[in-house]
């Protein structure tokens, strides 16, 4: 068993090499970053257009929506930057190249995901941080030390939820021919996490809270900072949801890895 310290050191070495290799394609980095910039702001643009015509969205003002959206952008960044290799899993499984990950004395999920470090995702993280700071100032949020700690815990839990949803979707390729449609669906659901969950009722709210808990990626945890006085006790379960879901994901991944038999060539 290796320690976490060893893994961290290893991760930095691997990513340093990866970034050096990617930097040969500077134009691609610039174009992809521009693409990321626009795609990460698209839904916010829609909220902005809507809030030009109506004063609020289910009781939330434009600036509060900016905060929720910024929280969302930061929370999905670890998935984008560190777990982007999930999208390639289906190719590795189909072509049989997945076998190579069995032959290193490393944790397989770590080894597999470390092979890619999505540089363009940094654009999204930076825009998210800038928007969060901007919205906090506009909304006069008082950042006491406790709140800052709370923010980090909330972001960490939210990031775990988002990572789990994408990795579980990618794991479908262990059992079906092509996991792209499943991943595409998970990707689309991600976009709904900054929507005020209070607009939904019945089945939709239940699914987004308990089945595919995208509400925990942004809307629920954001309430801790926007409306601390009327936070539902559900919000305090965020870390449990995040860690629990990731444990489930790791279990599914292990199941998949153990059932994979290669392509025989």
């Amino acid at each position, binding site marked *: 068993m290796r320690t976490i310290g060893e893994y961290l050191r290893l991760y930095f070495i691997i990513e340093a090499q990866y970034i050096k290799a990617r930097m040969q394609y500077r134009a691609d980095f610039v174009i992809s970053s521009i*693409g990321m910039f626009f795609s990460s702001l698209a839904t916010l643009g829609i909220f902005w257009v809507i809030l030009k015509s*109506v004063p609020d969205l289910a009781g939330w003002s434009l600036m509060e929506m900016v905060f929720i959206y910024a929280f969302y952008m930061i929370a999905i960044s670890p998935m984008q930057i560190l777990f982007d290799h999930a999208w390639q899993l289906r190719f590795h499984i189909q072509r049989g190249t997945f076998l190579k990950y069995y032959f290193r004395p490393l944790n397989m999920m770590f080894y597999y995901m470390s092979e890619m470090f999505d540089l363009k995702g940094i654009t999204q993280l930076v825009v998210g941080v800038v928007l969060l700071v901007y919205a906090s100032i506009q909304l006069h949020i008082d950042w006491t030390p406790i709140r800052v700690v709370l923010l980090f815990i909330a972001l960490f839990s939210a990031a775990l939820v988002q990572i789990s949803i994408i990795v579980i979707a990618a794991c479908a390729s262990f059992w079906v021919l092509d996991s792209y449609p499943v991943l595409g669906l998970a990707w689309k659901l991600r976009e709904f996490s900054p929507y005020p969950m209070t*607009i939904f009722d019945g089945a939709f709210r239940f699914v987004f809270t308990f089945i595919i808990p995208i509400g925990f990626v942004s809307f629920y945890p954001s309430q801790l900072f926007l409306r601390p006085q009327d936070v539902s006790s559900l919000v305090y379960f965020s870390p449990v949801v995040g860690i629990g879901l990731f444990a489930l994901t790791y279990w599914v991944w292990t199941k998949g890895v153990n059932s994979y038999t290669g392509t025989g060539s």
Partner: protein
Amino acid sequence: MKGYLAVMRGSIMVGVVYRFGFIFSIIGNVIYLGVAYYLWKSIYRHADVIRGLTFNETFLYVALGSAIFILLKTYMDWIMNYEIREGSIATYLIKPIDFGLYMLFTSFGSVLMNLAAITIPTLLMLLFVFKVDFTLGPGLLIFPLSLFMAFLISFYFDYFVGLLCFYSESVWGISTVKDIVVTVFSGALIPLQFFPDAMQRILLWLPFQAVYHTPLMMVTRPDQGWEVFLPMLLVQLFWTVALFIATRMFYNQAIKVLRVSGG
């Protein structure tokens, strides 16, 4: 012509093989429709008519917009990028066929497949689950024509991005920017009427709205006269022809830089 129809049939066959994907596309679309329904329901708590549209009209607009989005999503830009990168584009160039038309018919084949597998189920759902009211009017008659031009314009956007792959390998970035610009400024995500007036006036002249807004208006407000529809159709026709000519000229330039490695 017969050859191109065979191309179209081939691309329908490919769609049939991947039918597993359609189930998830339909599920994704149902969820999207549900989210859009609740979102607009909560927006319409403020007023019955916003920007000249009722809830029913807005929801129909947005829901059909998503159906058209899926209908026209044929990934031609990605397919062309793949062909160019792998060098298999050479096999088209030695055949006595027109590359642009070949791609157009491949795209049309997958549109027909999408129509049967995703768009029609979506429309049935709108009718029977969400129970939206359709208004009758002359607009409905010209809708198919308008939708066909929308397909051509959308195809030429994809084709243009595909041709850019002769120069650059960063298809993800270019294609993402194209998708965002087309969906946000066309009415695919939100009716054009909601944009600020000054922006709206500019957007109505651009080719993006010709893909979504124009055909969607034929269905959501079909009871208007020719003086409304004719200018819209003319703008659509203009962009169809303009993009056709522009991509032809671009192709003739781009093909000169193509180098396919032997093998």
